[in-house]
């Protein structure tokens, strides 16, 4: 939509957006549904405007890595399904899917949001591994924030399955009420720069014209755990600190939605 792209850029110069929102305004409705899947240990479906993302948490007992024998681990995988946008194809994950999963992963991992030591059952032999799958249902823009929100909601909803004490077999059909050892709640917020202006929650059209973007993951205390910059344009230090402030403010807002 080249016509709309020029219009978006022009409007950004006049401090306006094509859908009439403010630069710091998220789309509505924002809904978080948890435990949508009975086969997953924890799951969530998040809708933001027309963007819909599902996340699922699976837990399995594995041998810990050799360099961290007393810790469990996490793995995040994202799939951009062809049903969510005409731009995605099935097959091995592309660059966008890899970036989405890694940015989400970094936010959780580097914040040390999950206490890995508590996931360990027998040091060097057995530990819980948290496997998170992100599946896009509809991509109408801003997948980073929605995927982050869905992941956190799914992690919060996750409950350990019952383990048979004698055989060590996991009964996935039964759940205990023990939640994951979550110590922090990091949420990523992506701030986009279009025509010199900073804004959050772009639509799919706005995502096509951005100059630069910065994803900032912050926890509830405002500690920054991860950042990811994208786009070709450079960012000045002033812009970066402005973006971090915006990200923190919007993360608080999203956290409010999640806790509702």
């Amino acid at each position, binding site marked *: *939509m*080249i*016509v*709309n792209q*020029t*219009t978006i850029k022009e*409007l950004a110069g*006049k401090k*306006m957006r*094509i*859908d*009439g929102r403010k630069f710091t305004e998220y789309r509505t409705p924002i809904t978080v549904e948890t435990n949508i899947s009975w086969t997953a240990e924890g799951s969530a479906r998040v809708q933001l405007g027309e963007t819909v993302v599902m996340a699922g948490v699976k837990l399995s007992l594995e041998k810990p890595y050799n360099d961290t024998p007393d810790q469990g681990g996490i793995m995040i995988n994202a799939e951009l399904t062809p049903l969510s946008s005409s731009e995605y194809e099935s097959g091995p994950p592309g660059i966008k899917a890899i970036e989405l999963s890694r940015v989400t992963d970094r936010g959780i991992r580097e914040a040390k949001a999950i206490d890995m030591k508590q996931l360990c059952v027998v040091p060097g032999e057995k530990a819980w591994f948290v496997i998170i799958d992100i599946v896009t249902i509809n991509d109408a823009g801003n997948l980073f924030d929605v995927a982050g929100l869905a992941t956190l909601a799914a992690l919060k909803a996750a409950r350990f399955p019952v383990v048979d004490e004698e055989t060590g077999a996991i009964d996935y059909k039964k759940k205990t009420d023990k939640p994951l050892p979550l110590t922090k709640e990091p949420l990523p917020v992506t701030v986009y720069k279009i025509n010199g202006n900073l804004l959050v929650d772009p639509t799919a059209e706005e995502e096509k014209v951005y100059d630069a973007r910065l994803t900032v993951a912050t926890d509830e205390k405002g500690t920054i755990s991860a950042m990811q910059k994208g786009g070709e344009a450079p960012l000045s230090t002033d812009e970066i600190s402005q973006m971090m402030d915006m990200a923190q403010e919007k993360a608080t807002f999203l956290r409010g939605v999640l806790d509702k």
Partner: protein
Amino acid sequence: MSELLKKEREIVIPGEILAKGMDFLPGENSYRENDNIYSKALGLVYVSGRVIKITPLSGPYIPMVGDRVIGRVTDITMTGWRINTGIAYSGILNVKDATTRFIKKGEDLSKIIAIGDYVIVMITQVTSQRLIDFSMRDPGLKKITGGRVIKINSHKVPRIIGKQASMVTLLREKTGCDITVGQNGRVWIRGTPEGELKAARAIKRIEERSHESGLTKSMETFLGGAQ
């Protein structure tokens, strides 16, 4: 013994039996199998005399000769442009149908219309294989510059235009925007940023409430006073 099984304006789904017996004839989007007439689309039933037809509520746009559509240029060929109108079949806009100006041999066609540009074109020919030819040599047919293009369900286009273009005239008056409605469901709006937004919202509202009666009246209140 013939029998009509559905009422006028009743919603039917594909494969539903509309009528039994040979006294009725299948019209648009319906077909006969043995003694029964079945629906071919999701839509409303209309009966005129013996003919039963279905006005579809959804589905893709079917290109028809004479329709003015808004298309996007996807490729430049030796002699023209390939244009997508939002359906599976793309069409060709030949150089000779694109402009009245003389175009020299070997001229760079992307200088005239580039890939990604939107154009208002008229369908001049559709083959049985859905190969489409376009023309841009009528008044009002041109390359789109400025403003925004929005997409709606092509079956709602008649409601956006209204009886004798009453709805689109109302939209133009109240928002002060230029509005061009393509039969394929793409609408081009150009005006002030506020006007464009108002028009886009109004069009989405019409699309949602297309089945309501007295829509022009309720849109008048929605749009409020003239700009």
